[in-house]
């Protein structure tokens, strides 16, 4: 299976009202890859993430997942295609406990694999196990990010979308989370598409990467190539490694 295209985004244009946020974006993610999308604030990275989930909807172009056109599907139908998301701002359920949050992640299969998957999440993020009965909103930022990823994993996704998993977290926690992503990809062959501002960490982690500027993909290549690229270095990496 490795190597076949899982997610294919072709010529996608997305608008907020009359303002064009995505300018004909072509991105594809192959089975078993970690793909990173890097770019500055306002480049349209999160918009692309949300467009994959149909909110906002792409005005032109097409998004294909595992051979099915999902461009016009409602958000919950897209999620049922086994695309899971740890959205921007994590969006955990603040008044529900950690356990209930994870339970919500398993809604798709009506809790069929629930016990097994909960154990997997706790192995991946032991910290969450210590916090099972705690309310989501009282967790620290890093724990919330773990919970958000854990909740996404409960759906047994074929593709995991991560929107800025390192946002606002201490370097040590960022490393833990990136390690967990790498681990998931290596052991379970999980395909990951990740949006990051932390270009260095993301490109080191990723098989391939894309650079986005003002709604356009301007560069692409393997993680190593992009890390070595002088333009990328000048724009995103100089001024200290994150």
């Amino acid at each position, binding site marked *: 299976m490795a190597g076949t295209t899982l997610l294919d985004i072709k010529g996608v244009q997305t608008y907020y009202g009359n303002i064009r946020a995505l300018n004909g974006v072509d991105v594809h993610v192959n089975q078993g890859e970690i793909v990173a999308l890097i770019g500055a604030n306002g480049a349209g990275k999160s918009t692309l993430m949300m467009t994959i*989930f149909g909110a906002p909807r792409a005005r032109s172009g097409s998004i294909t997942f595992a051979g099915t056109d999902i461009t016009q599907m409602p*958000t*919950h139908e897209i999620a049922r295609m086994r695309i899971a998301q740890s959205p921007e701002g994590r969006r*955990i359920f603040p008044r529900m*406990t950690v356990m*209930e949050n994870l339970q*919500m992640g398993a809604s798709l299969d*009506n809790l069929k694999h629930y016990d097994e998957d909960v154990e997997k999440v706790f192995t991946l993020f032991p910290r969450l196990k210590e916090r099972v009965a705690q309310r989501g909103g009282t967790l620290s930022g890093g724990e919330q990010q773990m919970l958000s990823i854990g909740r996404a994993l409960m759906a047994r996704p074929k593709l995991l979308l991560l929107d800025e998993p390192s946002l606002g977290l201490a370097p040590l926690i960022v490393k833990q989370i990136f390690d967990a992503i790498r681990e998931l990809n290596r052991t379970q062959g999980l395909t990951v598409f990740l949006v990051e501002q932390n270009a260095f960490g993301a490109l080191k982690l990723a098989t391939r990467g894309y650079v986005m500027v003002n709604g356009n993909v301007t560069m692409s290549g393997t993680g190593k190539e992009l890390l070595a690229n002088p333009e990328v270095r000048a724009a995103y990496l100089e001024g200290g490694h994150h």
Partner: protein
Amino acid sequence: MAVTVSPESDVVASPVQRGLKEGFYAGAISLGLFVLFIGLKTGQNISNELVVTTRWGLLAGVVVATAVGRFLYVAYGQPFMANQKIADVATGLLPGSVASRFFQVPWFIAAVIAAVLLFVFNNSLAGWVGAEPAGYLQFLRALAIIYVLASVIYYFRAFIHANFTKLGIAALVLYPILVVAVLSLNAWSIAGGLQGSLKWVDNFGIQILIYVMLAWGLNIVVGLAGLLDLGYVAFYALGAYAYALLATHFGLSFWILLPAAGAMAALWGVLLGFPVLRLRGDYLAIVTLAFGEIIRLVLINWREVTNGSAGISGIPKVSFFGLMSFNVSDSNYIAKVLHIAQSGAYYKIFLYYLILGLCLLTAFVTIRLRRLPVGRAWEALREDEIACRSLGINTTTTKLTAFATGAMFGGFAGSFFAARQGFVSPESFVFLESAIILAIVVLGGMGSLVGIAVAAMVMIGGTEALRELDFLKQIFGPDFTPELYRMLLFGMAMVIVMLWKPRGFVGSREPTAFLKERRAVSSSFTKEGHG
């Protein structure tokens, strides 16, 4: 940041000093506030001229009372309450609480003896001490009984807390029997006799339970799914009119029409749900408010069907599952079937158990649904709609099921209401009703069934009880009508509860997913009024 500390401020004022100061300020403020309100009164004299009467004495009384009250609170009340929270250094224990000092065994025994003695010699009391002191002695006896009951509750508080639901249901089941048995044996009582006791079953029992059911129904929409519905009374009205019209025109039985009314209200819940799917919070509240008003205006203006503001009367009573009827003229009237004396009491008591059953059904369904995917989806929807969608939850059906389920219980309650009253008119379904039901849900604690039931008891029982406070006329003069102050007290009570318990009476939320054992979740887990 440099802070200059003046030598005086190093000396912390003693509570008494502070009390004197604050008492003085409070007196001054109340003087300023009340000098015109209380000090001066305008009226008309016989020749229709405006006259100003002064009431300096009363004003002085109020000002002094305010000042003294503030002084006592600051000087003694606050230090006392603060002390209650400081643990003893030696033992690490908190000092004996007010309650443990108030409820002590010798006093308990004294109260029991006093109550028993006053009961035994009740009839001869008036002869011994005269009529008026005897009245006070009866009041004393009532206090003694209340003290005894409160002590019992206090001593068994751990047991009561642990078995609250079971005890609560048992108390509700036994309530009419106890009330009728106790009060009808005591013809002397202010609320005595069989008729007096039935008032307690009807005005308090049934009335409160109707609101408990409505509030539990609304709790599904507001407390669980987080959809602010200000027009819930519309579904109540739909259920009531569905029963009233179908029963009077087609003579269908309550037991057929109850599910029909529920289904009808649920259908309207879905119809309301569709246009408001995209709305949340304030916007949703306004649309549902309008929906409630539309239903009421239709009921008023569609005269051919609803008989307008005159309402529908002569709505048939509920039968005992068709086996026995509560109409004296019917051949299967309950007294004839069971060969017992004729009485209107049977119907009241039957209605009580009927609404109790409907309430328990609502609670049971709510508790079960919370553990099912749809109930979990409701709660997740309340928390974060976008996250819900990205987890594959269809938020459209989730919202519609919440509206429909909540509306269905409103419809059940409505058809019960119509059957109980025998008469419905649009006046019963004004916006104030929606507001009261919502207030009960908020005061009780959103999502908490027990809290909501307690809130309904306090709000509805409390306002009903204010009708009974005739003895206040002894204090405030014969012109005083406590009923008129019901809404004022109601509003004050709500403000006070929201200040002290912003999450409602029961702020804790029972989680539905567990790793191994159940753990209670602290009150910081539920929705709250601020922030």
